[in-house]
């Protein structure tokens, strides 16, 4: 499947959910925030949010800032 992840297009083997995607990327779901097709997801929704071809995702985390 094709998704756009943090601005870059990527082709992946089919992945069922956002939670699964984070897993596959070795990202700790508790440390990131996810925007799925411009909708911000609560952490609790990662597992329930299906991933589809063409989805656009933003995965962000906190960094130092003023």
């Amino acid at each position: 499947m094709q998704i756009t992840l943090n601005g870059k297009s990527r082709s992946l083997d089919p992945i069922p959910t956002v939670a699964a995607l984070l897993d596959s990327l070795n990202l700790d779901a508790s440390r990131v925030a996810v925007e799925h097709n411009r909708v911000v997801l609560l952490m609790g929704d990662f597992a329930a949010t299906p991933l589809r071809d063409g989805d656009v995702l933003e995965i962000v985390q906190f960094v130092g800032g003023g």
Partner: protein
Amino acid sequence: MDELIIAGRKFSSRLLVGTGKFASNALMVDAMEHSGCEIVTVALRRVDIDNPDDGMLRHIDPKKYLLLPNTSGARDAEEAVRLARLARAAGCEPWVKLEVTPDPYYLLPDPIETLKAAEILVKEGFTVLPYINADPVLAKRLQEVGTATVMPLGAPIGTNKGVRTADSIAIIIEQAIVPVVVDAGLGAPSHAALAMEMGADAVLVNTALAVTPNPGKMAAAFKKGVEAGREAFLAGLGEQRQKAEASSPLTGFLRD
């Protein structure tokens, strides 16, 4: 007890600290601890998918510090709102330091987009602390839409120029119904002290702590500067005078 109250929440420290640009997380934490701050700002950025680090958050004890996510990088209201929502989704309390800075050179805030974003975020239940130019009318309008503070800049971010906008900030303070937090440009404890002597409720400092060789020591210095200014404001400062006034008696001298 002299407390700072923002959106009903009490703080004993009047120094907010930014976490950007430190040479290491250890130095950042050192500065936070010596500053005595209770609020620290953080930013949101994309995870580097190909080599993720596990972030700086674990270095910050959520029991000791209120995490205040900023919307740095946002160029308009919409981007700022997206960032605020992401920060809340990431588990932060719904507090946000609202920054909308379309100009990449001086990073100065956009009054129009900032007000627009503030209205949206207040409606969504956020506690909004907007970073603004020292514009008294804008400050008033933001308070009217329900921001929890106003954060006028002393000078452009990272310039260390101090309170160059003193005249306008004095007006903002005089007219404010919420805490006034002077943000940006404060490069030395004397700058922070001056802001507090003017009646500011708090200040936010980042660059001055991050660029010094001794962040912990500088943070301790700013802590004292803020307290000095606050205490002097409460004690009551004297007026500036044109003519001198002797501090020793003018009579009873040998010759008289």
